[in-house]
């Protein structure tokens, strides 16, 4: 793309001109920095232009950025031409292929939705190979026919081979242009992946055709022998398969290398870029399809690389890749515009230009329709007419064609100037006209748009279930189809490849479902904290992973505080009560955070190292969480051994219940469509009752609904209700004083929900209710924390205390028994004391700030405590017919 004009580069290394004798104070060294300075300058101009474009949303919503950039390039080129009297800059093929194209291809390969890609591989390959072959031959031959018919200017001195050569370079759909335009259009994924996949994979065909015809032209058509044609066919397979093989090889190397980068985290991203680039260069070196190499390298390494490198590196890779690709794209389009100004290389022939435009559009459409007709016989979801229109119309040509035509040897291909002009017109036409009109077209045709939504757990689960079911059906039928092989491949991958290419720690936990789950949990956790913890006031519970969430805009802490404050304090009389309620809430909140959040120590080492980003806080964090966790478990073990069921357990129980109920209240309320105004304590209390005596739940929850609007009045009752609830859930015969509940293990065992769990869990579910049972957020919390924890301590290492705890119960109870028991534990003095105070101690709220290190042993409470235990508190909400209407 850069300073093409020979003298500039050639004279660059010279000593500065007019170096005066003696030692000057300042020296003008432009020539030394000229080349890099120009590169940086152009990129800067292009990037600034992008900012300017985005200033006006009206323009960018209609005109694709690529069009704007091309126009800008035209303008800049015109200015340069006017000043310098000659075209200074243009898109240099070597620059383009060696520096500008690789980032774009790598980006698209690496972030290619691989599942979608491989599911549609058949269609993509058909369009890429057969479609491109058809396009080039048909276009070339038709143009030659035009020439033979005498419609073309005599100056176009070209034979059949020249036209075929031109056809081969002009017919390939361009990945850069397609990506640039289609990314803004948001058509559905299948359509996108087919058009885009085609544009990537047709590179092999284009390269082969281009090379073969080029050599034919250079040899002169008279000297071409039959073996040359055969060689051409053979070279197609060599180039495409070889390119893919190079990509796979480098993907393998890359994955293997990242397995061992644990101690050099900081250069992890570098490996990704270096090896991918090496793949590109290696393929280029042996004249294989370099685009295929990088594409496959990107697609195949992603899974392993992502598992191996650290989270920060992942982000770095992502951003760097996007930055590089985006700037390359910008520069490419701009230089396309600039290059077009260079009229010295133009030779215009109207018939050629119009003919080419007509033919590429026509043959593309014909090709697409014919191929789709064939493909639809095999496709499960056929491509309909509208899809075909978009596919034919979306065949954009771009910089690849331009660079290839510039590369032609003007001495051998005598019509080069005509071809250049035609290519420029074609590229401009497809990018400008088609790029501009495709969006309205898509809208007008009502093409299915992509619905961008975050992955949901259910989707992932069902997808896996489908895969297995379909694979099983293929097994049963004895038909070894696509799914069979995919299944086989996944097994092979799990057994050998992943073990070889992934870190042990990563491999153990590698599971798509689990990954999605962790991701969602982390997102929830982040939003939980972002919301200032007011998730706990039930009504505020909006988790981002829940697609039905309302806007999060008002979730800032101050807003929340203001709202809940104003909502509660309308009545002066109850201010006291209100405060206590809020205090309670804060206290509970505090315990939740205290138990489940990692508390960073306030000893920051001010250290700087080029090679490490601080002594990896993440690991230290994991380790500490793990240790605390272990400590807690050991304590649990001790106390369970002595069969101590102290008051702690009661308190713990109560708290559990409370929080859970809140959650349930939240869930219960949402369906009402009521605005999420403050759900208050009393509702929570009512919900406690609901959960506890499942017989009365109908009346109780109706009570909940009634109470909802009454607000403050019920606060006093609420505490009672909580106490009752606690009593009910704990042991019915104990005295109500929360402090001195005597240990009564037997009754507890009788009454505690998880104790009665052997087999019949539906006890807590009434038959009319939905059975889609919400679970406490703690479960989610717990998992997100414990997933962190398990990074540090692979699950295999944990069962130590675990196993000891369980020593007694039968194996199938293992999972149930030990965890719930931790609920009984309440070792934290803070919590013990908190309950009596909870009626109104303002300092409680301050504790988080005052004692960041407080209660380290409570750390990970959420993580150990009661996933299963909690979840067995099946709280149904009161929407009988919603979810199971059938």
């Amino acid at each position, binding site marked *: 793309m850069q300073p093409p004009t020979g003298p500039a580069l050639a004279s660059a290394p010279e000593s500065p001109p007019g170096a005066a004798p003696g030692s000057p104070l300042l020296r003008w060294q432009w020539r030394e920095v000229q080349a890099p300075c120009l590169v940086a300058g152009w990129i800067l101009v292009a990037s600034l232009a992008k900012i300017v474009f985005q200033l006006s949303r009206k323009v960018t919503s209609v005109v694709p950025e690529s069009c704007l950039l091309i126009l800008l390039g035209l303008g800049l080129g015109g200015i340069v031409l006017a000043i310098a009297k000659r075209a200074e800059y243009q898109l240099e093929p070597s620059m383009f292929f060696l520096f500008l194209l690789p980032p774009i291809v790598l980006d698209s390969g690496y972030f290619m939705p691989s599942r979608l890609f491989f599911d549609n591989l058949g269609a993509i390959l058909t369009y890429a190979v057969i479609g491109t072959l058809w396009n080039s031959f048909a276009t070339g031959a038709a143009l030659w026919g035009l020439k033979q018919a005498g419609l073309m200017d005599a100056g176009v001195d070209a034979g059949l081979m020249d036209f075929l050569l031109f056809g081969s370079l002009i017919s390939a759909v361009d990945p850069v242009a397609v990506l640039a335009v289609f990314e803004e259009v948001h058509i559905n994924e299948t359509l996108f992946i087919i058009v885009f996949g085609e544009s990537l994979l047709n590179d092999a065909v284009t390269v082969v055709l281009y090379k073969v015809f080029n050599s034919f032209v250079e040899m002169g058509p008279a000297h071409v022998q039959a073996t040359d044609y055969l060689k051409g066919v053979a070279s197609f397979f060599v180039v495409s398969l070889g390119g893919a093989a190079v990509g796979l090889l480098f993907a393998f190397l890359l994955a293997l290398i990242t397995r061992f980068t644990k101690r050099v985290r900081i250069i992890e991203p570098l490996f990704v870029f270096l090896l991918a680039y090496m793949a590109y260069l290696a393929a280029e070196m042996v004249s294989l399809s370099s685009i295929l190499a990088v594409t496959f390298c990107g697609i195949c390494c992603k899974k392993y690389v992502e598992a191996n490198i650290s989270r920060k590196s992942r982000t770095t890779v992502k951003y760097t890749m996007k930055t590089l690709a985006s700037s390359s794209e910008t520069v490419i389009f701009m230089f396309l515009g600039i290059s077009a100004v260079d009229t010295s290389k133009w030779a215009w022939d109207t018939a050629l230009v119009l003919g080419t435009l007509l033919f590429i559009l026509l043959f593309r459409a014909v090709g697409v329709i014919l191929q789709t007709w064939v493909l639809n016989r095999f496709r*499960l979801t*056929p491509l309909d007419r509208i899809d075909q229109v978009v596919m034919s119309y979306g065949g954009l040509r771009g910089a690849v064609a331009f660079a290839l035509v510039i590369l032609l040897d003007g001495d051998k291909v005598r019509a080069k100037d005509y071809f250049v002009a035609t290519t420029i017109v074609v590229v401009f036409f497809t990018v400008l006209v088609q790029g501009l009109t495709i969006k309205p077209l898509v809208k007008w045709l009502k093409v299915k748009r992509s619905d961008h939504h975050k992955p*949901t*757990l*259910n989707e992932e*689960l*069902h997808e*896996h*279930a489908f895969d*297995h*079911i379909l694979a*099983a*059906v293929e*097994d*049963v*039928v*004895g038909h070894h189809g696509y799914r*069979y092989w995919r*299944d086989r491949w996944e097994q092979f991958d*799990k057994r050998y490849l992943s073990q070889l290419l992934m870190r042990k720690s990563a*491999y153990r*936990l590698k*599971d798509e*479902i*689990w990954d999605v*789950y962790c991701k*969602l*949990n982390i997102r929830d956790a982040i939003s939980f904290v972002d919301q200032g913890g007011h998730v706990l006031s039930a009504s505020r519970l909006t*988790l981002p992973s*829940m*697609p*039905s969430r309302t806007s999060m805009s008002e979730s800032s802490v101050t807003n929340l505080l203001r709202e809940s404050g104003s909502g509660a304090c309308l009545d002066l009389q109850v201010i006291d009560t209100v405060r206590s309620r809020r205090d309670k809430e804060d206290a509970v909140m505090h315990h939740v955070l205290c138990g489940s959040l990692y508390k960073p120590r306030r000893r920051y080492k001010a250290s700087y190292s080029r090679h490490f980003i601080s002594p990896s806080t993440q690991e230290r964090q994991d380790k500490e969480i793990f240790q605390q966790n272990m400590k807690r478990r050991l304590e649990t073990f001790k106390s369970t051994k002595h069969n101590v069921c102290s008051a702690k357990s009661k308190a713990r129980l109560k708290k559990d219940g409370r929080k859970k109920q809140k959650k349930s209240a939240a*869930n219960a309320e*949402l*369906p009402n*469509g009521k605005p999420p105004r403050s759900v208050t304590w009393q509702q929570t209390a009512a919900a406690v009752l609901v959960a506890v005596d499942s017989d009365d739940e109908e009346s109780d929850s109706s009570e909940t609904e009634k109470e909802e609007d009454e607000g403050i009045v019920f606060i006093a009752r609420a505490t009672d209700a909580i106490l009752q609830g606690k009593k009910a859930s704990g042991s019915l015969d104990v005295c109500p004083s929360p402090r001195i509940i005597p240990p009564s293990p037997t009754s507890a065992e009788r009454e505690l929900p998880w104790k009665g769990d052997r087999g019949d*869990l*539906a006890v807590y*579910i009434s038959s009319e209710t*939905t*059975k*889609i*049972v*919400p*679970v406490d957020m703690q*479960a*989610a919390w717990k*998992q997100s924390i414990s997933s962190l924890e398990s990074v540090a301590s*692979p699950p295999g290492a944990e069962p130590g205390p675990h196993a000891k705890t369980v020593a007694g119960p039968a194996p199938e109870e293992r*999972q149930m028994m030990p*965890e719930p028991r931790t609920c009984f534990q309440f070792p934290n003095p803070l919590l013990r004391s908190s309950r009596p105070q909870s009626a109104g101690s303002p300092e409680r709220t301050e504790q988080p700030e005052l004692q960041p290190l407080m209660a380290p042993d409570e750390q990970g409470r959420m993580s150990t405590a009661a*996933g*299963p235990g909690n*979840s067995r508190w*099946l709280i149904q909400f009161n929407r009988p017919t*919603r*979810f*199971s*209407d*059938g």
Partner: protein
Amino acid sequence: MGSSHSMPEEIQELADKTGFTLEQIEHLHRRFKQISGDQPTLRKESFDRIPDLEFNPIRSKIVRAFFDKRNLRQAPDGLADEINFEDFLTIMSYFRPIEMNMDEEQLDHFRKEKLKFLFHMYDSDNDGKITLQEYRKVVEELLSRNPHLEKESARSIADGAMMEAASICVGQMVGPLWVV
């Protein structure tokens, strides 16, 4: 063809009923005999003869679906002990691809049938509802191939998924997944 389906009319009848072509039925019949060991009916054990099925994590659920009377359209619940070829075809017909010439209504019906089949697979106690317990079982089985994930994580995943399902379904009368 087997003794019971030797008549061409019968095959034709089967074809009309299940929507398979004659060749497909023939192929399926060959496979049926292979699995059943030349018996007229399939039993659960017969599926052990399919080696590829062995690694399928939800194998038991899938095999069970073959014997589920709801899927066989015989009874509202219960499990059959053995299925004959016609039943086999009935089950298989759930997996037919949609055809180009189907109208909207048929398509809808077809999709619903498929969804029902899946639903029945999840709903192991035949009460028309998927409970958390049932869902957990499915998730556990799905994850059972990974020895490093504990059952507990499967549980929490199922819990999370249920919660999510609840939140998705809110506001819509019919959850997208559980159209039954």
